[in-house]
């Protein structure tokens, strides 16, 4: 038992160090050539000028938002996969992202986003909340949250909302169309510091709260009935976990758009190395998600500078390849045993 905890602490330490290293790397890399020396000197003394503003007004907010969103996606991915005992579930499976996308598309074609830039995330979050309530209400039967029903309703709702988005796109004007397409692709560029701070706050709070349920999640991974026999109030757990993860997803999507793959791959990856215990999985996925997203964003904005790629392109290619590699390697090791 003790050994296990020490191993976990080491894992957390390693991931934390990784996170720090990747953040510093991301701060140093970009289309504007700022030497590492200069970065270090700028870090320790406040200054003005274009280099200072590139570091602290452009690169730093992206890193912080990457931390929050990556963490949130990794965390909600691991919660949902544990809850559903289904390794294909990811934060976007339940259709919450579809709701957010629908909300944002509506705010774009109605021209509301021109009035205030904040309208876009606000509408996105409203859309997500509406869908969460809808899914929740549809899968509640006599006070019991039906997991299979939840999943199916979620998938159907995500299809419906994606069709509705296509409908909006087909009747919208060219400029609005660009807005919708680029929003859907996802980006960590966010001009508003307030939203970034909220994102960090929400993901850290959710991480904290989710730890009250780590034992419940472990029990749930045996099956609902077994969890019930182990004395767990599964209805309350399921409801709260669903709410936490869907609010996390709703907020992330409305701020950063749909950045795919983080929530799907990261939990698998962590499980491969750290085992199936949710006590380490929760924080492990959070930190790994954050590292992964910050790194992908750095690649996306610097690989073919001055053009910036959508970060989803990199998360998909990099995450998918890494995962397949890890999977085949693991199989070889298992075969040798």
């Amino acid at each position, binding site marked *: 038992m003790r050994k296990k905890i020490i191993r976990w602490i080491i894992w957390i330490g390693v991931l934390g160090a990784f996170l720090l290293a990747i953040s510093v790397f991301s701060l140093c890399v970009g289309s*504007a050539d700022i030497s590492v020396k200069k970065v270090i000197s700028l870090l320790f003394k406040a200054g003005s000028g274009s280099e200072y503003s590139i570091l602290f*007004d452009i690169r730093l907010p992206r890193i912080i938002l990457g931390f929050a969103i990556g963490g949130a996606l990794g965390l909600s991915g691991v919660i949902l996969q544990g809850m559903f005992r289904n390794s294909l579930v990811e934060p976007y499976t339940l259709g919450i992202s579809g709701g957010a996308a629908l909300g944002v598309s509506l705010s774009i074609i109605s021209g509301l986003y021109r009035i205030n830039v904040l309208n876009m995330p606000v509408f996105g979050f409203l859309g997500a909340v509406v869908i969460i309530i809808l899914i929740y209400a549809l899968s509640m039967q006599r006070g019991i949250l039906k997991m299979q029903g939840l999943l199916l309703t979620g998938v159907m709702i995500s299809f419906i909302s994606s069709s509705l988005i296509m409908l909006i796109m087909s009747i919208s004007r060219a400029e609005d169309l*660009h807005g919708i397409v680029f929003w859907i692709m996802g980006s960590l*560029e966010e*001009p508003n510091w307030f939203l970034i701070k909220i994102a960090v706050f929400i993901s850290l709070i959710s991480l904290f709260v989710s730890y009250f349920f780590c034992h419940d999640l472990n029990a749930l991974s045996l099956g609902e009935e077994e969890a019930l026999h182990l004395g767990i109030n599964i209805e309350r757990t399921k409801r709260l976990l669903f709410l936490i993860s869907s609010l996390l997803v709703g907020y992330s999507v409305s701020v950063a758009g749909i950045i795919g793959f983080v929530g799907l791959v990261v939990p698998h990856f962590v499980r491969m190395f750290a085992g199936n215990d949710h006590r380490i999985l929760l924080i492990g996925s959070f930190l790994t998600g954050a590292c992964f997203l910050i790194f992908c964003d750095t690649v996306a904005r610097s690989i073919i500078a001055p*053009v910036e790629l959508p970060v989803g392109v990199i998360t998909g290619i990099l995450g998918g390849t890494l995962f397949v590699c890890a999977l085949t390697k693991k199989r070889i090791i298992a075969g040798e045993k």
Partner: protein
Amino acid sequence: MNKSIVGTVIVFISVFFLLVSLSYSENSETFPQRVISLSPSITEELYLLGAEDKLIGCTTYCIRPKGAKTKEKVGTVIEVNLEKIVMLNPDIILATSLTDSKAVEKLKNLGIKIESFPASKNFNELCNQFLKLGKIVGKKNKAEEIVNDAKNKIDIIKRKTENMPHPTIFVQIGSSPLFAATDDYFIDDFINFAGGINIAENSKSGLYSREEVIKRNPDVIVIVTMGIAGDKEVKIWKNYKTLMAVKNNRIYILDSYRLCSSTPVSFVDTLKDFVEILHPEKRKINL
């Protein structure tokens, strides 16, 4: 002793006021010296105005005129690279409504002046924006001159085509799905000025059904090669033998560059193309 102090104070005050008034007069006369353009058409217009020496950055799409190719690139029309822009330290950024709204917000927060030019939908808007651009970069007179010249030429064309027959025309700007040029686009002005009738003028969205085209049976079909294979589209249209445009072999392909990024000058040039397409019998219109 006292006198000299009063004297120096007076001198100082007068020098101060002189400086203030000088800087004021300079302020009202200075125009941005470092301009970044986020649109190919604005880049082209800057060259037209003779303000290319002030242009320090543009998009990767800005390839006309030739000089624009060598200017520093700061991203595409939609996605801009904020770091590059900040490094270039511009006085003003000329953006469009296509520019990522988050990036615009960010640049404003960074204290960079940014002027947005929404995509103009007709010739009048184009001229107004051109004049606005001229004012910003301090070439007001030149801009007015160019606009007036273009307007005069267009008036001549309009007068000449007025008494000619008005053929109906369908301009296709996208295939699968079939996309028509409605009055949301410049193309509608080209057609009207050149004395044609756009069958898709009042269509709400550009999405258009082939059936509708066949029903309305336009005399002329123009295909704009906007990333679509024009020849293939011509073949598809030729399957519908009942179409007047097919019978009279009046299907044309136009380069999208000529239609999309327009300045008042290139507008007139493209308009001449349309006149030729719509009135082939009067090919030799003297303009």
